[in-house]
């Protein structure tokens, strides 16, 4: 029982093209045109050809069978309903009806638009700026949105360049500034949540222009840098605790910043050396001057008598 000529030609075209395009596989064909079906409907000469091919080939698989029999011959001898079943299976797969997923296209658009907006945010601070829009679309995370909404505005004029300028001052000046400035930035520091991102940004920016090692301490010491960059960790730096500072800086900045750790030590070393060097120089030449000029010894009551003696 073979299909009419027109239908057979249609099956030949459709199945042949599906195999050619990879939409159907020989396994799909043999799933319907099983060996039993072939044995029942294929003429003996075709079977003889198939057996010879299988015996000759190192491996017998569906492709070999279909290639040997050929699609036109299959469609000529295999019952049309079976061919149709095969074709329908391929079409089902091609149309994706194996999955019950017609709604996805409707749901897809909104999330696609949102991630696009989020993806546009290149860095952490910018993400914070875009956060409000995201939260507006999705009320899932309202709390962080409020916090972020405030931050970005304060950060928007983020002076990524400031860290560089703040990095420039020499260590000698920094020593004085540290004692003066450090406490003040600690108080205005409250905008704490920002610091982490700015520090990274500062480091990333600092990576492009070659920054000298001693330049890094300022971000915490400088007032401008304190406002823009480090808010939360500044109090630690402002505490003027040398040991803690070093720890805080090392923690805040990734290990990639060699200069950060180096400068921390340098700052403290510079300050100590500055205090040490002055007395050493004075010992040689100005000891006499110090004893003679008592005006300089203002508050020391206990020392005066000794000198008088």
């Amino acid at each position, binding site marked *: 029982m073979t299909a009419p000529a*027109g239908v057979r030609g249609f099956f030949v075209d459709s199945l042949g093209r*599906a195999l050619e395009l990879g939409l159907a596989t020989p396994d799909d064909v043999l799933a319907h045109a099983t060996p039993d079906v072939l044995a029942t409907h294929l003429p003996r000469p075709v079977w003889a050809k198939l057996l010879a091919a299988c015996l000759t080939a190192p491996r017998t698989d569906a492709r070999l069978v279909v290639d040997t029999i050929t699609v036109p011959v299959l469609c000529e001898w295999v019952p049309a309903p079976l061919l149709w079943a095969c074709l329908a*299976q391929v079409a089902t797969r091609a149309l994706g009806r194996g999955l019950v997923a017609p709604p996805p296209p409707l749901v897809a658009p909104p999330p696609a638009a949102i991630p696009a907006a989020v993806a546009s945010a290149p860095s952490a601070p910018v993400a914070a700026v875009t956060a409000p829009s995201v939260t507006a679309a999705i009320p899932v995370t309202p709390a962080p949105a409020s916090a972020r909404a405030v931050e970005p505005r304060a950060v928007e004029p983020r002076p990524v360049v400031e860290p560089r300028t703040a990095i420039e001052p020499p260590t000698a000046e920094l020593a004085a500034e540290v004692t003066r400035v450090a406490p003040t930035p600690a108080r205005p520091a409250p905008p704490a949540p920002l610091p982490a991102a700015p520090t990274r940004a500062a480091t990333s920016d600092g990576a492009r222009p070659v920054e000298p090692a001693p330049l890094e301490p300022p971000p915490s010491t400088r007032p401008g840098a304190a406002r823009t960059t480090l808010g939360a960790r500044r109090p630690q730096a402002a505490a003027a605790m040398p040991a803690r500072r070093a720890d805080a800086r090392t923690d805040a900045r990734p290990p990639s910043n060699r200069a950060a750790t180096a400068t921390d030590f340098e700052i403290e070393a510079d300050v100590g050396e500055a205090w040490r060097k002055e007395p050493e120089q004075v010992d040689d030449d100005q000891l006499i001057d110090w004893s003679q000029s008592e005006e300089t010894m203002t508050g020391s009551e206990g020392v005066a008598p000794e000198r008088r003696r």
Partner: protein
Amino acid sequence: MSIEARERWFATMMESGLAQQIFAPADVLRHATPEVLAKNLPPELLSKVLAASLAAGAMTPDRVLETVTPDVMARHLPHEVLWECIAAAAERAGVVGGRAP
């Protein structure tokens, strides 16, 4: 499977079905209704269909399919619609053991 491959396959089936007279242009337009065509065909093709019909003095299924070729159908019309057309034709031909997907 890629979309292109699926389009080419459906184009082949539509072309073969018409060539083998499994279904006729009228059968195609029974599924690819004016609404489907108007919704899915690009403006230039709609214009072309109308212009050809105006030039011939009538809009017949054969004339529509002269412009809306199997390739065009596979490219622009929903494949589900095309498959309904094919399945219906196969059912009429009595080769359908089961139902279309």
